[in-house]
């Protein structure tokens, strides 16, 4: 199956930002190098998925239809990020209980009623919220970096959040063997959703010049 690696999420003052690279791996093969793992749910919510890409596409189809149906209702309401997160948690847990999970770990980011939202749901139906989130390898490599920054400065500006994400994406590109140097960024603020991409990190390989042989 085709899989995606880490998804990162960081809250900032006035919104959230999530990021995911554009690679679909087939085992160790970098099979599809230009796919989007982030979807816009509505004007307040975005969703990034790691894990099985086919299951992500199925989820996307289902969620897109939900949004359309809600539009047709025409009652002036739109799904809040928390509502999407809650629904997804139930949906993923239900599938896992039928021994047929959607093989994904999902990050939901949004901004609703003046509040930032950042939530996590995985294929077991485990769900939680946190100011910083990371799935897959990001949990080991990026999460400590993100938490360290927030410990010193609990409320970030949009640019600080973006810089943090970029630093983390660089580390992941160096150290995750299933990553790729092309990623997308989704920023949600009261103004709405902005998906930036494709972006690339600046890499530094200068230390290679110091290496000769292995002794």
């Amino acid at each position, binding site marked *: 199956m085709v899989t995606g690696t880490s998804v990162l999420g960081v809250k900032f003052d006035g919104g959230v930002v999530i990021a995911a690279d554009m690679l679909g*791996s087939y*085992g*160790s*093969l*970098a099979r599809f*190098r*230009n796919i989007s793992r982030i979807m816009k749910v509505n004007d307040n919510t975005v969703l990034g998925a790691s894990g099985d890409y086919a299951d992500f596409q199925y989820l996307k189809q289902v969620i897109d239809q939900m949004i359309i149906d809600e539009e047709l209702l025409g009652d002036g309401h739109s799904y809040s990020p928390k509502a999407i997160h809650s629904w997804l948690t139930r949906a993923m847990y239900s599938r896992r209980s039928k021994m047929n999970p959607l093989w994904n770990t999902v990050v939901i980011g949004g901004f609703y009623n003046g509040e930032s939202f950042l939530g996590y749901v995985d294929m077991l139906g485990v769900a939680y919220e946190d100011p910083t989130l990371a799935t897959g*390898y990001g949990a080991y490599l990026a999460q400590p970096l993100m938490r360290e920054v927030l410990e010193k400065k609990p409320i970030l500006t949009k640019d600080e959040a973006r810089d943090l994400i970029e630093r983390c994406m660089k580390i992941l590109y*160096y*150290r*995750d*063997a*299933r990553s790729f140097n092309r990623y997308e960024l989704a920023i949600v603020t009261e103004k709405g959703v902005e998906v930036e991409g494709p972006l690339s990190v600046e*890499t530094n*390989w*200068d*230390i*290679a*010049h110091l*290496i*000769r*042989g*292995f002794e």
Partner: protein
Amino acid sequence: MAVEFDGGVVVGSDSRVSAGEAVVNRVFDKLAPLHERIYCALSGSAADAQAIADMVHYQLELHSLDMDEAPLVLAAASLVKGVSYKYKEELSAHLMVAGWDRKKGGQVYGTLGGMLTRHPFAIGGSGSSYIYGYVDAAYKPRMTPEECRQFTKNAIALAMSRDGSSGGVIYLVTITKSGAVEQVFLGDEIPKFYDE
């Protein structure tokens, strides 16, 4: 990867060492010198490959002191083959031996599975699966040293782009009668191809 030309060889490698999905070393030099004009390219288990390279480096040093002359590339390759074959059940590495000697000039030997085979060029490692088509299509006999370097860089760049276990920078060594010249290619110096 190693390519022979008239008067020497070009040997090249990527620089990624991975433990599953973790990149343990992103700047590892997989081109190990066995002697002044003989190098080997390491692939497979890093520990096993280093162990074999160290053993053969030692054996070749003694051998060349005994003979009081530079060792033959075939001698180095045979020593590598000897270890790889004897311990084939226990080891999980493939070393490609390439270099220059007075007798036969530039030579490339593969030692996969404990065999000994000579080739005009050879590729190995996990990323090699993705470039068999490319090297078969792009190789031409009697290339110049510069063409060989470009061929090697291109092939390795393509493999690095598709194989999750390959990446980092490209190390290149050109071995001739005059000695071995080592080079590193990073970032923008690595050839770019379609990658969407």
